[in-house]
């Protein structure tokens, strides 16, 4: 009998598969469950000229933009919620260092839904008469063949790679979310299905038996997943459902450092380049500190 394919790899190996000049879809939304461990490794490996895709983003986009990894970015938002604006994103747009393509929450999602379903375009009324209609490379006027109504056709998205942070997975690539979770991030499921390759970091690796026993939590069966990486607290400083909260203190520190490009560089040096890997970063953050934001170790 042939050996079954396993997808569990090291962080380093998974990120090595991301090529320069490729399109990177970042899952998560606002300050929730972006795959920060994977993003740190992308920065360590000095990737270049990436095009970013997301529907609602934050420190994930901001950090990559600040590290000059990004050529173009697409989303409806880049902000740090009640901590404030994302400074690297703001500087890069104001100094025209990246190309920014504005979306609404629905237009970004609809392009991904279309991509996930094998359709070549999505239709929407949102871009009609909106500022985003200037982006003609992905929008065309279209008339409904049945009613004659006006719509905008939007080119589907099939990014080269999606990165996603989830709760659990087995080594075969069956990925699970926690039962009690914030429903903002159900978008991750169809986002992953739109991408050509998917890298998932998880809080815990579990046995196949555990997956089978809780199969209602399996949101991405293995056919949708290419690589699995173990990364406890892998969304930090973002929250991760009922496991740990948004790290307000660390986010404020990041915000202070990002006030200037030099300050941001020092943050990256200290927290990413010198820590060598995710475990090193967690050691630096400190487990006493992480305990303060932790709600449960295995989710709810």
């Amino acid at each position, binding site marked *: 009998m042939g050996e079954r394919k396993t997808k569990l790899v090291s962080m380093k190996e998974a990120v090595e598969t991301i090529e320069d000049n490729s399109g990177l879809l970042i899952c998560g939304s606002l300050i929730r469950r972006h795959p920060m461990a994977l993003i740190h490794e992308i920065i360590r490996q000095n990737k270049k000229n990436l095009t970013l895709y997301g529907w609602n983003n934050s420190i994930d986009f901001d950090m990559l933009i600040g590290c000059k990894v990004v050529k173009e970015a697409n989303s*409806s*938002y880049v902000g740090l919620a009640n901590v404030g604006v994302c400074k690297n994103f703001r500087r890069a747009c104001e100094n025209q260092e990246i190309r920014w393509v504005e979306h609404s929450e629905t237009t970004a999602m609809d392009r991904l839904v279309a991509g996930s379903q094998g359709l070549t375009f999505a239709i929407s009324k*949102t871009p009609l008469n909106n500022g985003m209609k200037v982006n003609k490379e992905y929008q065309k006027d279209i008339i409904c063949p049945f009613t004659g109504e*006006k719509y905008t056709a939007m080119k589907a998205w099939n990014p080269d790679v999606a990165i996603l942070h989830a709760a659990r997975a087995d080594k075969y690539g069956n990925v699970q979310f926690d039962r009690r979770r914030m429903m903002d991030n159900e*978008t991750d499921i169809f986002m992953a299905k739109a991408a050509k390759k998917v890298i998932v970091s998880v809080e815990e690796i579990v046995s196949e038996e555990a997956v089978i026993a809780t199969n209602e939590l399996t949101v991405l069966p293995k056919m949708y997943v290419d690589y699995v990486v173990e990364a406890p607290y892998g969304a930090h400083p973002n929250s991760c459902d009922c496991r740990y909260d*948004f790290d307000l203190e660390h986010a404020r520190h990041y915000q202070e450092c990002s006030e200037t490009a030099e300050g941001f560089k020092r943050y990256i040096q200290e927290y990413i380049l010198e820590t060598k890997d995710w475990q090193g970063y967690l050691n630096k953050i400190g487990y006493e500190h992480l305990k303060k934001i932790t709600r449960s170790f295995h989710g709810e």
Partner: protein
Amino acid sequence: MENYTIEEMLAVEVSRHIHNDEMSFVGVGTGGKAYIRAVGIPAVASRLAQLSHAPDSMIMFGPIIDPVLDSDSIPETNNEYDLIHWPCRSQTTVYDSHVVFKAGRMGVGFVSGAQVDQYGNINIVCIGDYNKPKVRLPGSLAQPDHLAYAKRVFAIIKHDKRTLVEHVDYISGCGNEHREGLKGGGLALVFTELAVMDFNDSGKMRLKSMHPGVSLQNVIDNTGFALDIPEHVMTTEPPSEEQLKLIRERIDPKRKWLNANITQEPTTLTN
């Protein structure tokens, strides 16, 4: 007549315009005053409406549908864990919450904005030219969708010349000038710390009422375009004692909403 704060005034006035049996949408706010305008006031207004003329009305906070809006049930913080455990009747995916908009079933979309112009176009994307902005703001979020699809949109904004401009620098929310192909009603009401505005038949912003103690000159001096001003401008009805009691004792005694305490960065609209 009791003293009331401007936040209480606005919550009461907004509540009057919520219809029964309708769904409203409240997004995330950022923090501080923006949070009070975008989230805090709509939340209290929604509960006030439920407790008076609109008992079947519902509110949607992103994926959280029809949460219990009395003080004891409101989470202490807007940490994800607390929001997940906030008692509500349903949780839905954000994609499905958008479908409510697209299907034309969203009654009121609550928005705020850095700029609003005389035709009700809204801007939360940039100050200055889009391709070389003077200030790049975080982004449009679902505002384009609110203005495209919601039956009515209510904006709660600051009343000054920087906000109320002749023409927005970027249209993140489509106003009343060009609505071809769009199903929603667009911006219907604008609430500020000075006044309430609606729109005339030509789609231009019109003064509806001024709050007690506010002069017409005050309103004109703080508006960056010529408002349509009717012959007789009403005074916004102040909160009743009963409404103040409801806000202060039942709905928001800890000012989680009206002073943004839930964001852990409390503030008021007046400081």
